[in-house]
């Protein structure tokens, strides 16, 4: 190939947008909302955005790992509800110690994820179908388990179970810290642990991954289990904040998580995406939700706006690539 000297010297915007476009969208969104509402740019509100985003953030990391393997997990919201009601029930009606109840809750999430992963890898069912089944199954199971009634009054059983949802470290609410740790863990796993790199390899080319000796089925099992476990963790936080475990909790949470991951630049073709991108995606979704509330947009319009903004973000993303 001939050298570069014949090309005119000019700044190439494309790589710049590819790298910083997402961050710029986030800043632009913040700027617009600061102008539109004087309540937006206050530390109280910003902390509020972060706290509200933390549940979606925790779920999104799991969702991202699944999408990196060319999969999808539609069951995160239902699994959240099922694990939350079982955990709360263990605590309230079985009199289990807090840590044990939390453990059971996470185990339920992991088990649901394991079923997803098993179906997707060993049984070779398309992820969409497998997790669609789990979505319905877990929701039904949560309603059956509670008879459709929320489990409330967790306060009286000590603050332990609500700790993750309500405690504060200095000025910072606990959910933000938990989400931060999950993001940190996700970043380390995906970027600095062989298994994390295998997730990218698998998403990039499953056959090459298999022929390179990567444990393809175990990787899939892992990502779905991670998604399930993180949903359960998000469930504990939600229960803590609401002081009740509802079988209808987490409805449409899969939507916010998928939206955040995809807005964050993770490709549905697998093998491509960053934790930082997902973080920004989560914040963008959170800020849109927050902004629509601040601007007193009615609930119906909120959904319309959210859908449109996400479609727009993806269009932009595609145009830049």
């Amino acid at each position, binding site marked *: *190939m*001939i*050298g*570069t000297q*014949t*090309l005119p010297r000019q700044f*190439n915007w*494309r790589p710049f947008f590819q790298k910083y476009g997402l961050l710029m969208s986030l800043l632009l969104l913040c700027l617009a909302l600061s102008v539109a509402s004087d309540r937006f740019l206050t530390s109280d509100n910003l902390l509020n955005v972060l706290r509200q985003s933390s549940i979606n953030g925790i779920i999104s990391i799991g969702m991202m790992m699944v999408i990196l393997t060319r999969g999808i997990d539609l069951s995160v919201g239902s699994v959240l509800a099922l694990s939350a009601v079982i955990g709360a029930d263990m605590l309230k009606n079985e009199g289990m110690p807090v840590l044990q109840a939390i453990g059971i809750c996470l185990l339920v999430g992991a088990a649901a994820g394991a079923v997803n992963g098993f179906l997707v890898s060993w049984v070779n069912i398309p992820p969409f179908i497998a997790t669609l089944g789990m979505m319905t199954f877990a929701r039904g199971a949560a309603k059956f388990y509670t008879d459709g009634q929320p489990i409330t009054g967790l306060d009286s059983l000590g603050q332990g179970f609500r700790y993750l949802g309500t405690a504060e470290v200095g000025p910072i609410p606990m959910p933000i810290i938990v989400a931060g740790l999950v993001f940190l863990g996700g970043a*380390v796993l995906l970027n*600095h*642990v*062989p298994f994390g*790199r*295998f997730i*990218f*390899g698998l998403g*990039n*080319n499953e*056959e*090459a*991954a*298999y*022929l*390179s*000796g*990567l*444990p393809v089925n175990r990787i899939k099992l892992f990502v779905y289990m991670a998604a399930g476990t993180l949903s359960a963790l998000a469930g504990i936080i939600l229960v803590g904040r609401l002081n009740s475990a509802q079988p209808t909790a987490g409805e449409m949470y899969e939507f916010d998580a998928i939206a955040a991951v995809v807005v964050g630049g993770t490709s549905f073709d697998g*093998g*491509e995406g960053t934790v930082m991108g997902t973080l920004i995606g989560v914040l963008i979704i959170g800020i849109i939700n927050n902004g629509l509330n601040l601007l007193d947009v009615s609930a119906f319009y909120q959904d319309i706006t959210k859908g449109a903004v996400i479609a727009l973000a993806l269009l932009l993303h595609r145009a830049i690539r």
Partner: protein
Amino acid sequence: MRLCGCVGACTAFFMYKSRMDQTPLLQMQGISKSFPGVQALKDIDLTVYPGEILALVGENGAGKSTLMKILNGVYSADEGAITWQGQPVAIHSPHDAQALGISMIHQELALIPYLDAGKNIYLGREPQGAIPGTVHWRKLYQQAQADLAELDLKLNVRTPVRFFSIAQQQMIEVAKALSIDARLIVMDEPTSSLTDREVDTLFSRMRSLRERGVSIVFISHRLEEVRAICDRVTVLRDGILVGTHPVAEVTTEDIIRMMVGREVGQMYERRNRAATDGVVLEVRNLSRGDRVRDVSFALRRGEILGVAGLVGAGRTELAETIFGAHPATGGEILLEGEPVHIRRPQQAIRSGIGFVPEDRKRQGLFLGMSVAANVVMAILRRLTRPVLIRWPRVEAITRESIQRLDIRTPSQAQRVRNLSGGNQQKVVIAKWLTLDPRVLILDEPTRGIDVGAKAEIYRLMHQLAERGVGIIMISSELPEVLGVSDRILVMHEGRLAGEFDARTATQNDLMNAATGTTLNKGMNPA
């Protein structure tokens, strides 16, 4: 073969003389194209006359594909003009190109795996049924059957194409291009996965097309084929036009010199050292369904064992079975005399077997990932302390691999997608070398890569053999099998049909065995 080619080329030359007076079918003039950071083409002229076969040759990265993509409307040229039958034309999409009568057969097959052969051939051009908007399926399949019959192919037009071999799929692509009634057909490496017999069929079809006045641009790395079938040859190097010559006026050496810009030494260097005594891999009565039947052989340390045979003879399946990609249904595998149980690639890798698959893009590479990620993927688990990846080690190993295999890449972070075919193949091989394998199986290791990179890969195989690695090389190119191997196994319909000493065997011996003519007799003791 060579004589044939010569006579063919001479006749072609005279036919070409008379064609020179005609208006060119296609003229591309002063074509330049640059991508961010590289000028891919600079001031290229290309002329195709009606009823000629023009060879377009050059090393990988020389700009052949880019030029053809401009012709096909995939890219637009920065500068230059295209004239079609004397009229200036603008081609903005493959659809425009097709409307003019330009048909493109890509190296990467463009068939839809889940559709059957008939639907693929007439995709988007389905014959209409009685009711508008419906498809006349019977007519479609009849026509498709006729198209395939024209190529002497006896394939079921209702079988999804994914069940066909790559060679068969290639021929379906050819049938598709022919059915479009193209004036100009561009064939990008159409023979790279065909057996000699299939190549002959393809060539005879190409000759009759030429007689009908259809022009063909033939892109190939196999210069014997260029000699055999083409009228003129256009050589590109590093995005620049080196020259266009009648094939009869230049020697193969001339063409190679124009392609690489330097003299290339003898392609195949005969190794003096025979294989050592120790058997590293032994296969006993290995079977997998009816694809691999009762195959037994031994591979010695430092030996290069060639495996020849027709496409579909079970060579790839044999390799996959040894490697555990598809488990065996019978027989046993011994490594250094110890029986090993291989049901999955992981187990084969742990036993020290590496496998460079046939289709590097689909099976060998993580195209969207970096050179470094590809090189270390298989060994990554051993590069941790205690669980975190030691990046300096990754960097060092990659640097070493890039150096050792002379992988030409701007950086370790370069995505493998952006490398040329030869360098991609080196990356796949580098991945296995990181594991220091005892046995390395290479399936068509030089398919679709240029002359220079081929020679480098042969040299590398020799180096590995010197160091005691047992090498199994599957290849459809008989000169390659004969030139590179120490010993040659020939497969036919899943069985071993012959074993030859590469120093004494001839192409005829191998072909006879491959076609089953000498089955069970005339075994030439190695």
